[in-house]
């Protein structure tokens, strides 16, 4: 089973803020980390490989520094990794990102399964997986909480649709987006960290991928960010209660008629 896991690097929590005076974006923690949801996707891939054999391939689009995130994934146990890196890819929205990833997937060679984390923690879109599936004309199972192997060509997936659980039988090749509840991602063991440096990591740019220059990066994006700003906060006048918990509770119960 050939499995490609698409991952993303995100800024560390709280590391990006807006300067309330200038409205400029301020990045405090420079170091990015792997999108936490993507670890669940890698874990799913590794479990599928353990059951069915095959290989787990990581794919990411971004600057050269993103190789660090790929090393993390290789240390979890993935076999190889590809970074799609070029200035030309910059400023891509979901449509242009998916187009570029699809070009990478086609060059790697068509996989049986493509996995995504349910969404990225920074922009929180969760759209790229379904767009990739549509562009490759393959079926999808999003928001998966369980993935089971039925045969070499069929998986059974539980999808959590919030008010119902849907059981889907899906023929490969297919795209699956996993929820974080699906598993507990394994840790990187010291031995796997050492091994990760010997695993193949390939970097491709737009020329390697032979992509349409009008479909990548900012040019290939249909959406434009017109304004970035700090949200307005409506503040309330807080009434501080007695430090004595009992008195505080009584006040609330009385005033709110609980």
């Amino acid at each position: 089973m050939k499995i490609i896991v698409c991952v993303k690097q995100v800024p560390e929590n709280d590391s990006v803020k807006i300067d309330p005076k200038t409205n400029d974006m301020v990045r405090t923690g420079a170091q990015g980390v792997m999108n936490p949801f993507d670890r669940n996707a890698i874990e799913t891939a590794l479990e599928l490989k353990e059951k069915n054999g095959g290989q787990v391939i990581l794919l990411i689009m971004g600057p050269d520094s993103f190789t660090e995130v790929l090393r993390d994934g290789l240390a979890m146990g993935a076999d190889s990794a590809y970074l799609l890196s070029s200035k030309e890819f910059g400023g891509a929205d979901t449509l242009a990102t998916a187009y570029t990833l699809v070009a990478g997937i086609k060059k790697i060679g068509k996989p049986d399964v493509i996995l995504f984390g349910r969404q990225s923690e920074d922009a929180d879109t969760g759209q790229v997986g379904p767009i990739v599936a549509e562009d490759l004309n393959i079926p999808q199972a999003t928001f998966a909480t369980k993935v089971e192997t039925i045969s070499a060509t069929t998986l059974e997936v539980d999808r959590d649709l919030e008010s119902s659980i849907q059981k889907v039988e899906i023929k490969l090749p297919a795209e699956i987006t996993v929820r974080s509840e699906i598993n507990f991602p394994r840790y990187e063991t010291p031995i796997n960290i050492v091994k990760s440096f010997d695993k193949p990591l390939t970097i491709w740019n737009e020329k390697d991928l032979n992509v349409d220059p009008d479909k990548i990066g900012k040019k290939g994006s249909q959406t434009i960010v017109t304004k970035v700003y700090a949200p307005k906060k409506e503040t309330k006048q807080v009434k501080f209660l007695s430090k004595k918990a009992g008195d505080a509770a009584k006040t609330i119960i009385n005033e709110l008629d609980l």
Partner: protein
Amino acid sequence: MGNQEIWVYVEINNLMVEPTSFQLITKAKQIANGRKVVALIAEPKMSHLESDIKEYGPDEIRILRDERFRGANDEELADALFQVVKRNTPNAIIFPATVRGRSVAPRLQAKLQTGLTADCLDIYYDGDNLVQVKPTYGDGVMCNIICPDKRPQMVTVRPNIFEAKVDRTIKPKIQAAEFEFHEDARSEVEAEEPVDHTSTDLTNAKVIIALGRGAYSEKNVELARQLAEKLGGKVGVSRPLTDKPEFTHSDQIGQSGTTVSPDLLINLGISGAVQYTVGVEKAKKVISVNTNRDAPIFDLSDYGYVGDAGAFLEAMLGNLE
């Protein structure tokens, strides 16, 4: 470039209209400024949800009717919608940012090669452009996004941001949409079981006890659950606690979780990061408990208790008896 219609995708969930769709019909009417609001629904033969949709007064209800929509997969649904959009390109299509909306909308977007902004907190028109407001990069950053050159403009909008309002002054025209159902056997829905989320359904809870990292202990979880039960409410958490064994992602309040609108919200050990507070802006009365008097959560609270969450919970339980 497209006509002057705003389409709202009406989602069906367990044979009922998913309530976000009603909220989006109301919102679409508010921002329409002369544009026609069309509710679009793909339903099986015997389902007549248009009678529910009518109450909210869209200008038109367009129905894709086929028995196979019962248990249709994302590919079949996106294909059917694509045919209808291609016939009559609207100015904008609004989807609920539910699991289904988030799964079908991007497939349709890819077919149309247009822009789609996910998980918007607000939408409004600036001329012909639909301004799409969404949070990004976690803490404290909002952005406005437009799709200037392509139609339809597509968005998914977070549930419970807008209020659905009944409007019987408009008698919507009901029309059948032309399309052919193309079966796609590559993925088959084998079963769909409703899950009882009554323990965690935060979306419609009138009272919510929210726990954050600062108040987490096994005992406090138990006390919070007791208090929630006593007040007829639910327990929710901020993101860090979704890693704890007692909770899952469906218990999470905030940007990557659920947006809530309770009459009473009690925050315990939650400092007030924007990822959390964007999810509770609609709460009416807010009580917050935190050991740090300077915690930003107090700026959003009606009542503040500076001290231990466990002591506060015990006092509440004791005095409610």
